[in-house]
C-alpha cells in the first residue's frame, strides 16, 4: 500500500516541509511518492530535510505510477462513500492533495477529482491536514480500524500564554494524552505566524 501526494502548493514552504517530513517518518520513505512537481524541478529545488529523509518525487502525474486507474483511490471530502478497512483489498495506492487548506474549504481537491476521474473515498466531513489524512488512512487500511473507532479532536485550540491562543479549524487524530497529533515544530510555526503581517502575504 503506497501513499501518493499530488503537490499543489507553489514551492516548498516551512509548513509543507513539516507535514511531508512527518508523513515520511510515519509511513516509511519507500511508501510515499510526491507527484506532479512542476516541470524542470531538480534535486536542488527540494528542501534538504526532505532529501535527507529519502523522499521519492517525480514530475509525473499520479496516474503514471500505477498500472491501472482502478488501483488508485483519491481521498476526497466530497466523495459519496467513506473509507473502510475493506478498501485495503480494492486499492493499492492512496492519493492525497498536498493542499494548505482554507476555512471554509474551497474544495481544491476537486481539481484532482476532475483531472483524473479516480474513485473517491471520504474521511468524514471535516477538513484534515495532509499528515492527519495519511495517518487516518494508515489506521483504517493497515491497522484495520474503522473510521468511527478512531479518536479525533476537532478544531483544537492551542494556547500559547494567558492572552494568546490559536484555533486550528481542522480535525486531528488524538493521542493517548488527549492532545492533537501535530508534526514536530508545528506549534512553533503556528506561533510564528502571528508575527506575520499582511505585507508578508502580498
Amino acid at each position, binding site marked *: 500500500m503506497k501513499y501518493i501526494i499530488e503537490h499543489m502548493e507553489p514551492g516548498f514552504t516551512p509548513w509543507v516541509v513539516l507535514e511531508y517530513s512527518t508523513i515520511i517518518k510515519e509511513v516509511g520513505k519507500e511508501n510515499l511518492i510526491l507527484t506532479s512537481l512542476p516541470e524542470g524541478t531538480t534535486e536542488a529545488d527540494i528542501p534538504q530535510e526532505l532529501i535527507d529523509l529519502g523522499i521519492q518525487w517525480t514530475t509525473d502525474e499520479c496516474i503514471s505510477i500505477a498500472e491501472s486507474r482502478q488501483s488508485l483511490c483519491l481521498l476526497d471530502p466530497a466523495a459519496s462513500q467513506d473509507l473502510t478497512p475493506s478498501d485495503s483489498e480494492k486499492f493499492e495506492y492512496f492519493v492525497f492533495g498536498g493542499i494548505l487548506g482554507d*476555512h471554509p474549504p474551497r474544495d481544491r481537491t476537486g481539481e484532482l477529482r476532475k483531472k483524473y476521474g479516480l474513485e473517491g473515498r471520504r474521511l468524514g466531513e471535516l477538513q484534515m491536514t495532509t499528515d492527519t489524512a495519511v495517518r487516518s488512512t494508515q489506521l483504517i487500511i493497515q491497522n484495520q480500524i474503522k473510521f468511527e473507532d478512531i479518536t479525533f479532536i476537532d478544531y483544537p485550540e492551542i494556547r500559547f500564554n494567558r492572552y*494568546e491562543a490559536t484555533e486550528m479549524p481542522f480535525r486531528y487524530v488524538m493521542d493517548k494524552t488527549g492532545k492533537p497529533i501535530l508534526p514536530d515544530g508545528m506549534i512553533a510555526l503556528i506561533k510564528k505566524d502571528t508575527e506575520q503581517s499582511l505585507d508578508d502575504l502580498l
Partner: protein
Amino acid sequence: MPEVLISKKRKLVADGVFYAELNEYFTRELAEDGYSGVEVRVTPTTTEIIIRATQTNSVLGENGRRIRELTALVQKRFKIDEGKVILYAERVQDRGLSAVTQCESLRYKLLNGLAIRRAAYGVVRFVMDSGAKGVEVVVSGKLRAARAKSMKFADGFMIHSGQPAKDFIETATRHVLLRQGVLGIKVKIMRDPAAARTGPKALPDFVKIHEPKDEREVPAPFVKSYVAEPVVEAEEAEEQATA
C-alpha cells in the same frame, strides 16, 4: 417625507430601514474618521442625525463643507424637504470601549503592514487601559503558505451568554479583503458593569456579602413621661394665685 398616514407597524419598519441604511453608508464613508454609530432623533420640525465619530474635525471638513455634503446627500436620497434634516457630529467618549472603533483601527493597522500580534496586542492593551472589564480580539483567515487558522488575543474577564451578555458586551466584525481571500477581524469588549449609567450595575450572579454592623449598646428601658410638666405648672400657678 410627505405627511401620509402609515400604519404603526410600517412606520416602525421604515424607521429601522432608514437607520440601517444610514449606518451602513456612514460605516463605508467615514471608516477612516473613526465612525462609531448614528442616532436618529425625529422632532416635529426636523430630523436630527447625530454621527458619533472619533475624528469629528474630518467629519465636519473645512468650514463644515463635508458635513454639508453629507446632509445634501441624505436629503436627496430620502427625498426629505430642505432644512428638515440636520446632521451633527459628536465625539465618541471612551473610544477604547467602542468595539466598532477598535475593529476599524485594527483593520487599518493590519492594512498598513503591522504584524498581526503587535496590532492585536496594541488594541487589547488600549481597551483594558480604557477601563474595560475584558476584551477579545480574533483574527481569522488563511495566510499565504499556511493553513487557515483563528488567532485569538484576550485579556480580562469575558462572558458569552445570557442577558448580561446583551447588556454589557459590544461586538464588531470587519473584513479585510486580500487577493487570495478574506481575513476576518472580530473585536468583543466587555465594559465594566459598575460604570453603567442605566440598567443593572453588576452581573446577576454577583453576590456581595456585607460586613456585619458593630454591636451597639442597648440601654436599659426607661419611661419618658410627657404629662408631668403642665400639671406642675398649673399647681405653681395655683400657688401663686393663692399666695
